[in-house]
């Protein structure tokens, strides 16, 4: 496996800290400890791209240049970072003009980028490079009986489906199955979580959150597994608000890496499970019950 430079992005240093903690712990246990990219900067997120493309590409490409200097690929857990960096990588490869402008910008700060960096997601690395077999072997506390609904969100499969199916992604399903959990059929796995509309247009955003939660409940899921800090935030932090308007049972929202970590026997505290707004105690209880 080519060396990986871990690019947490801003969310994983803030609201998504549990994602950062659990990923580091999981990769550590699997014998592939994460090394953070030195001096990384903001990816620009989706908003910068719509304001000034040239500056947005230049900003994002700095991270590609830093990784290239390390002869590493970027490991990018946040869906938004993943999309922006992947889009930048493709655009620089396809557009000679933009490539030229960006190279000039990089040159000004003594950097260069030749196009030799892949953007990789933990789901891809864990299924392809590490492999389910190694993960199954490392599972210490199988999550037998835990019913998980896998929710991928939009940016990891649209518009580019780089490592999984666009409409019917499977990589997280496979990882969750490797933990011994039961993956329930969840047809809304790539539908919208409301994104920033939970804040700007709550009547639209909250309804979208409701639909996802309601479907998970209808499928009998104990927990929703997510891979994006914004999805996690919407489904978790807005859940009480949604429940005020709709008749729903509370359901914990965990990063797939937290669930994987529990199966690998990593203490809940180290996985940031206590950072959830909606209590994940029912997941922990199930693990405890199984251990006993």
């Amino acid at each position, binding site marked *: 496996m080519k060396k990986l430079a871990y690019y947490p992005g801003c969310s994983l240093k803030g609201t998504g800290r549990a994602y950062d903690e659990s990923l580091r712990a999981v990769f550590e246990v699997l014998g592939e400890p994460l090394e953070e990219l030195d001096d990384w900067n903001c990816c620009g997120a989706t908003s910068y791209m719509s304001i000034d493309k040239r500056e947005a590409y230049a900003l994002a490409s700095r991270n590609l240049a830093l990784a290239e200097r390390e002869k590493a690929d970027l490991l990018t857990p946040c869906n938004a970072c993943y999309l922006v960096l992947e889009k930048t990588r493709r655009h620089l490869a396809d557009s000679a003009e933009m490539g030229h402008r960006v190279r000039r910008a990089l040159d000004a700060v003594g950097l260069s980028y030749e196009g030799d960096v892949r953007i990789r997601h933990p789901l891809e690395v864990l299924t392809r490079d590490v492999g389910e077999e190694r993960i199954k072997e490392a599972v210490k506390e199988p999550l037998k009986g835990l019913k998980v609904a896998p929710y991928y969100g939009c940016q990891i499969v649209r518009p580019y489906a780089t490592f999984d*199916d666009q*409409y*019917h992604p499977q990589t997280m399903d496979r990882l969750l199955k490797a933990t011994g959990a039961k993956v329930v*059929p969840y*047809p*809304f796995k790539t539908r919208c979580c409301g994104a920033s509309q939970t804040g700007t247009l709550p009547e639209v955003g909250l309804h979208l959150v409701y639909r996802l939660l309601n*479907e998970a409940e*209808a*499928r*009998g899921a104990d927990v929703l597994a997510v891979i994006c800090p914004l999805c996690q935030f919407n489904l978790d932090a807005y859940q009480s608000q949604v429940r005020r308007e709709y008749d729903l049972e509370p359901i914990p929202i965990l990063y797939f890496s937290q669930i994987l970590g529990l199966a690998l026997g990593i203490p809940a505290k180290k996985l940031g499970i206590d950072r959830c707004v909606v209590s994940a105690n029912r997941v922990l209880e199930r693990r405890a019950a199984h251990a006993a």
Partner: protein
Amino acid sequence: MLREDGFGSGSTRDRAVDGATVNGDAPLTNGNPPIRIGVYVCHCGTNIARTVDVEQVTEKAGELPNVTVARDYKYMCSDPGQEMIKEDIEELGLNRIVVASCSPNLHEETFRGATAAGGLNPFFFQMVNIREHASWVHEDRESATEKAIDLVRAAVQRVRHHRALETRRVPIRPEVLVVGGGIAGITAALTLAHAGKHVYLVEREASIGGHMAQFDKTFPTLDCAACILTPKMTQVKAHPNITLMTMTDVVKVEGFVGSYEVTVKHRPRYIDVSLCVGCQQCIDACVYKRGKFEDEFDVGLSKRKPIYLPNAQAVPQVVLIDPEQCIQFSSGKCKQTCLEACDRDAILFDQEERVETLEVGAIIMATGFQTFDARRSPHYGYGIYPNVYTALEVERLVNASGPTGGEVVLRDGEKPTSVGIVHCVGSRDQKTNPWCSKVCCMYSLKLAHLIKEKTDAEVYNFYIDIRTPGKGFEEFYQRVAAEGTHLIRGKVASVYQQADGDGELLVDVEDTLAGMVRRIPVDMLILAVGLEPRADAEEVRRTFNITCSGDGWFMERHPKLAPVETFTDGVYLAGCCQGPKDIPETVAQAGAAAGQALALIDRAYIELEPNTAHVIAEDCSGCKTCIPLCPYQAILHDDAENRAEINEVLCKGCGVCVAACPSGSIVQNLFEDMEIYEEIEGVLAYA
């Protein structure tokens, strides 16, 4: 000297200088009259003129040595265009002709004809392709024009060295090979056989009939497909002029128009076809008490045994054994109950593959299509939810001889109460196939009608556009609409199974006519899968040396005027291998392909290019270098004279010997050294 006679329209402009002695060039052929070249630059409507400045090309051509006249014209291939060449030859005493227009594939014959009509040997002509090689592939007018001038200069320099040549006549074999035994191949084979020609009909499956045999009714008349197809299938079997070969693949094609040598491989069916009468007692006797393996003809909706009849109407009506599934082949320890049951001793476990060579004059490709694999569009749920079907599966369900005897029931045996039909699955979709598959609208309406008739279910058609361009098609659409089928204009976004809905599916769809998004529950969802080239089309294309268009369909010689010919002489196309078609269109095209093949073979001979090689006896040292290199065994060594001799009947003009000859004593007509050198010089001379 400027000529001022005009050719009527005034669109013809002379840019001519009498070039016989221009620049003081000496005549090139000692003792022969001086070279007088006519150059004609075609606009091809705007195809060339839009990007290439044809007037400038003509002007530059007029300034070249030996050019007597240079003209441009809107359509050189038209009658007036050809007439212009003829008259110029007669009036200006031209003795070489250059036409700068399209590909020689299209019009070399036309202009050679015009050259001959003017009284010259047709090989005093050279064609320049400034359409495919310049105007169509470039955007910059200036450089495209420069390139056209370079190409014209090359041809002018080359044509000066052309010699008078005679075409060769070779006989055409009257037999025809038809590849593929669907309705296209069957129609072509029968047409040729009725005309008294012998046909080899090669089919890779165990029975002929193709996709049409799987269908229930045909749109828009609702004729029973089997009722109209089966008689044709049996006619094929019975016709004395047709040799039917099933389970046979074409592995090699050699030769050329008029005399193709085709190597075919007969895969073993482990049954003596001449003995088996299709009584099926062997199937009853098989150690498998009931079917265990997916039946291909029923698209997996029923099970069959390892020994089976391809389908009830199969032609030939002969069983076969699948060696991958039969216990005798896997373990060698079967009780062989089938063998005992067969009182005609037709079962041959040790039958082997057999290779045979066929000699034919023409070939008709009728290799058909495959349906789009619905798993490639997983948002429609095929392969994920059991109640999502492909249209081909439903054809089998509604068919009286199908797995349910014509009952439309779900996999659990229940009758559906609401059925959705999604149009354009794998068609008109940038992610999968961009083309319209042409037949899906009509077959979807047909299935809607049949399902309504058989189940009284609510039927929803989800369509982008309804396309009904055919005789009686629009009327059929109106009829189905009047029957109460729901027609919802919009693309289906997603399909999923309800959490507690007993397999019920929810279809999320935009209804663009109502201006809303709808969620429609159905028990059964049918995907109107499109048509696409067969997975091995590329391999087949190579075997037969024909071309494919970018999307993978076999390519016709001309989209309008040569729709059944290919760029390989003597190879014709019929049916869906060339693109999506319905049955009437396929039958019409198959008839046309057979007609073209007949027109070819009834001429009895073909004229071949005189592009063969010959040895200049006094220069040959008899080193024999060329002899093993010739792919056609056309070179012999004359021991008495110690020199090589080329049989011009066998020579195909590949040029290998010419390049290899150490003493340069082999010359190839139309590719003589001087012709090539001058052409290179002409294209490189930056003027």
